Every structure is written in structure tokens, then in C-alpha cells.
């Protein structure tokens, strides 16, 4: 007997999770814009509430439009199951809510999206969870930050905004030694460029808002369960390994096996905390994902052209893009994401903070806003915006010093993107 043929990435981006609608034959995934779903009968209702069968109750927990998105993202990452949430931040909250108890700790890279640093440092403190930061370019620093209370390690595959490519395998080795799951935020890379599961990730989180949705029109997040972590082994993850008081004593890791984390995040954390994605957003993001391979390659090709041009500009002090051959992360780029180094990177202006403010004011094609991964090219000065809540030291360590400008390169003609920077720098 031969195994089934494995479809390629482009095929999965279009088809995974989606079949024609069984009721109407609609070929595009319908937007099931409904709060609730009728039960077939009383027995069916009881079985659904007991998790004894699969089906839909209420859109806060499951919805058929969201389900297609969830399976699509899980398939692209090569995981066992997915879960969509209202935002990337919501996805992170759901994962940690499932893994951690009050008093627990986790180790995170300090080179993260500024919003994640805020969430981990301040909001999570209210839940009794403590983050310890390590250096994503140094796997040993994660080992040094481990304590008996550590329950997880968190990194970004391509770090935002610094343009760092993380050596996921090296940090996965630390997680394995410590017997804790490695969570990888794969937002900037997308599974088109990096599939963290192939390098030892146990859980993947996404802001779908960025390149996966890709059109700057919908906020969303996702969790992918890689199915690789043994939740029963240590007994340190009671939400998964102990009988659940919330579901008549079922043990999630026994009942749901290698997709137990995704189910627990859904039927406990999402059910109780409530950050569900809307069916309409799920539909828009799904539509975006269908063209992910084409878009992501163009994003990367344009980014390389723009970064290369910037290196030659007299007002530019440095360009940190891993796709440039002299960049210190070039070797990791070649190893982890040879198709491209992403489309978000930073560069430094010789004129410092004032020049950064001037540049974002002078652009005409670039949009000055706090997002990345749009069809449109985007620009921001992190020190005065996304990273301004951080201390000076945190900002520097996150790669968001005074002179730093972050670009998210869009899908326009590279010549036009460059021409806009050229005129804006001339006026700066």
C-alpha cells in the first residue's frame, strides 16, 4: 500500500480545509454569519456539549468559515490542528492561558514585536505569569533563563522589527532539554518561508492580520498545534493532563491525543475568555491565503531590491535585512528561508530621531501606520510609535533605537517604492 500523495504548498494554500458547501454546492467558502447552530436533536445537543461528537454550537467556539481557515493554516504549517482567534494577541493569550497556572514562568526572546513585549510584561503579570527575556541570537541565554517554574519558550521565527532570523533548531534543543514546549510566532515569515515544525517547534502562533491575510483589511490570529509535545509525561500542564472539572472529568491529552492543545485552547480558553474571530474576517483572510505563495515571493523580491538600494544611500547609516549577503543573519536566512528573508526590515538614519520623524512625514506612496504585511508599502518610526511604551533599554534591545525606521515592503513596482524613498530622503 502506498501513502497518499502529499499536495504541494500552493495547492494547500487554495484547497486545504475547503470543500464545496454540502448544503448549496457553493465552491467558495461561505461566510456563515450566524451566532448559533440548531441541534439535530436533544441527544445531539448533549453530545456536542460533552465534546462527544464534532459539530457547531455557537460561533464563539466554532464556526464553519473559521474552521476552514483553521485547517488551512494548520495544513500550511504541517500541524495537527489550528484555532483561529480575534487577533494574534488573542491567540497568544489563549495558548498561555492553556499552558500556565498562576506563579508559572516562561522564557521569551526579547527581540519581539513591541506589542508582545507589552502583553507579556504587563498584562500577563495580572494573571500571575512571569516572563523572563533571553536573546534570540543566543540559544544559551534561554538555557540560563530557565527555572523550575518555566513552562514554555517563545520566539519569533523572523523577529520584528529587527530583521533577525532565529536559529529555531538551537532554541528547540533547549526546550527539549527542559521538557517544555517551544512556541514560535511565525507571523513575519509565514509558512511559505519558514515551517517551524520542521525545526522543532511544538506550537505556532500567528497574527493573520499580516502576510497571511495580506491585504490590510482584517485583524485575526491563529494557533497551530504541532502535535509533537507529550503533555502527559511531566504532569506539569494540568489543563491537558488532569481530569477537567469543566467537562465531567475528561482528560484532554487522552481524549484528543496529538491535537489536544488546539481543542483545549478552543473549548476552555476561547470558550471562557471569548476572543473569537468574526466569520467575515475569517473569510477575508482565507481569500488572502489563497495567493500567499505568489504574494510572499513578490514581497521578498521587492524587499531585497529596496534594501539593496538603501545600502547605497548617503543618508542611511545601516540596513538590517537578512537577505543582504553581508548581513550577519544571511547564513541563517540561507538555512531557514532561502526563498526570501521576509519583507519587514529596519534601517538607520544618520540624522537620528528627528530624521526618522521627517522621513515618515515626507513619504507619498508609503503609508505611515502601525501594521506590516499589507499589499501596500508601510513605514513607521518605532521609537515614536510602536515601541514608545518601552524603556530606552528595552527599545534598544528590541532593535528600536532612535534612528531606526521600519519598512514593510508591499507589492507595488519596486521602482516606484524606491522612487518614493528617494524623494522622501531628499526632503529629509
Amino acid at each position, binding site marked *: *500500500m*502506498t*501513502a*497518499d500523495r502529499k*499536495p504541494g504548498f500552493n*495547492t*494547500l494554500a487554495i*484547497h*486545504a*480545509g475547503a*470543500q*464545496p*458547501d*454540502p*448544503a448549496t*454546492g457553493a465552491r467558495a467558502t461561505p461566510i456563515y454569519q450566524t451566532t448559533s*447552530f440548531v*441541534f*439535530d*436533536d436533544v441527544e*445531539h445537543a448533549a*453530545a*456536542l456539549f460533552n*465534546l*462527544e*461528537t*464534532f*459539530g*457547531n454550537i455557537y460561533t464563539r467556539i*466554532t464556526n*464553519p468559515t*473559521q*474552521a*476552514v481557515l*483553521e*485547517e488551512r493554516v*494548520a*495544513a500550511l504549517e504541517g*500541524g*495537527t*490542528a*489550528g*484555532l*483561529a482567534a480575534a487577533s494574534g494577541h488573542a491567540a497568544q493569550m489563549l495558548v498561555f492561558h492553556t499552558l500556565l497556572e498562576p506563579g508559572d514562568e516562561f522564557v521569551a526572546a526579547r527581540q519581539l514585536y513591541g506589542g508582545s513585549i507589552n502583553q507579556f510584561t504587563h498584562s500577563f503579570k495580572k494573571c500571575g505569569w512571569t516572563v523572563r527575556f533571553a536573546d534570540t541570537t543566543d540559544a544559551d541565554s534561554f538555557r540560563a533563563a530557565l527555572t523550575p517554574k518555566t513552562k514554555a519558550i517563545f520566539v519569533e521565527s523572523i523577529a520584528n522589527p529587527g530583521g533577525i532570523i532565529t536559529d529555531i533548531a538551537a532554541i528547540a534543543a533547549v526546550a527539549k532539554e527542559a521538557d517544555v514546549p517551544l512556541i514560535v510566532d511565525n507571523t513575519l515569515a509565514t509558512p511559505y518561508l519558514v515551517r517551524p515544525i520542521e525545526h522543532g517547534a511544538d506550537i505556532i502562533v500567528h497574527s493573520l492580520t499580516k502576510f497571511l491575510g495580506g491585504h490590510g483589511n482584517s485583524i485575526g490570529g491563529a494557533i497551530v498545534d504541532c502535535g509533537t509535545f507529550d503533555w502527559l509525561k511531566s504532569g506539569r500542564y494540568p489543563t491537558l493532563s488532569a*481530569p477537567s472539572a469543566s*467537562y*465531567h*472529568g*475528561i*482528560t484532554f491529552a*487522552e*481524549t484528543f*491525543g*496529538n*491535537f489536544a492543545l*488546539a*481543542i483545549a485552547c*478552543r473549548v476552555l480558553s476561547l470558550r471562557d475568555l471569548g476572543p473569537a474571530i468574526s466569520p467575515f474576517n475569517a473569510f477575508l483572510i482565507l481569500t488572502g491565503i489563497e495567493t500567499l505563495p505568489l504574494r510572499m515571493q513578490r514581497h521578498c523580491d521587492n524587499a531585497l531590491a529596496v534594501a539593496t538600494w538603501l545600502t547605497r544611500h548617503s543618508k542611511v547609516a545601516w540596513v538590517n535585512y537578512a537577505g543582504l549577503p553581508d548581513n550577519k543573519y544571511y547564513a541563517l536566512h540561507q538555512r531557514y528561508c532561502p526563498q526570501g528573508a521576509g519583507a519587514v526590515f529596519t534601517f538607520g538614519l544618520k540624522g537620528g530621531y528627528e530624521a526618522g520623524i521627517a522621513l515618515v512625514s515626507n513619504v507619498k506612496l508609503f503609508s505611515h501606520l502601525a501594521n506590516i504585511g499589507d499589499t501596500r508599502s508601510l513605514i513607521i518610526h518605532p521609537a515614536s510609535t510602536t515601541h514608545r511604551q518601552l524603556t530606552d533599554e528595552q527599545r534598544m534591545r528590541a532593535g528600536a533605537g532612535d534612528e531606526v525606521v521600519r519598512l514593510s515592503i508591499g507589492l507595488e513596482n519596486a521602482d516606484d517604492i524606491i522612487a518614493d524613498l528617494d524623494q522622501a530622503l531628499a526632503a529629509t
Partner: protein
Amino acid sequence: MNHDVYSDAYVRGILTNHRTIAMVGASPNTSRPSYFAMKYLKAKGFRVIPVNPGQAGKEILGDKIYASLAAIGEKVDIVDIFRNSEAALAITREAIRIGAKVVWMQIGVRNDEAARLAEEAGLQVVMNRCPKIEYGRLSGELSWAGVNSRRLSSKRSLLGAKGVQHRVLKAAGD
């Protein structure tokens, strides 16, 4: 046969060609995975016969529990093993003796010697899988939970006769 991976057609064939499952290690505890699997498979039209020597004579979901496969007085197609890997060998020998067509070992259960014996006797073997999960995966129901079915299709899922929230592998009357 390679038991690390099964084609969808192989698993689908087993689940559509057979109707009677003897579930060895079935538990009357309503929070156990075997109870979940039994309830689900019954809802999909399978006749499920629980086997558990410690509970013999009692009932699960209205079905009498037998002490052994040999004690079942009717034809059994699939023997579903909810026991550990070591215990699977003796159960497989018994499955061959009673004329079962398929030996199915649950997730985490694998016994290659038992598989070899069963295949030599002409039985089909599935190891380290759950028939409930496989049924839900192939029918499309499990996709409602965001689970990666590792399956692409441009055809509609089949709706069951019981209602719109039931998907099936085979239309009623097929």
C-alpha cells in the same frame, strides 16, 4: 505492510465495508476515551459490542459487556483494541480465532508481531489510530474542530440522514 502510514482509501474501505465492532477495553466511565469512541461510532450506525472481563454482564450505552471476544455469540468484523501494546498480541490471536476481518489498535497501541500474525491469517490491520477520529477526519466532521484532515477534495461532504450536523462516509442505502 508499512504500518507507519495508511492511505485514506485503506482506512475508508475498512470503515465503510464493516459494521460490527468489538471494542476490547471499553469503559463504562463516561469520561474515558473508549466511551466517547463507542458513543460516536454507534451514532454512525456501527454495532459496537463492548468487551471487558472486569465489567462483564453490565451494559455500556445499552449494550451488554462481554468477558471475552470468544463469549460474543455473533459475527464480529472489527476488533478495536483499547488496551496496551503488550495485551494486543493475545487479543489479536483471539480475533483471528473468532473470524474477525480487521484488527484495529488504538492511538498509542502498536504490536508488530500481532500485526504480522493477523495479516498472515488474512486480516487487515490498523495500528496507532482511532476509528472515531478516522471516521471524523474522512467524513469532514473533524474539520469543524480545525483539525488538519490531511485530505483535499473538490467534492461535497456527504450529509447523514439524521440531520445537517452529521456527515457520513457512505450515503444511506449505499
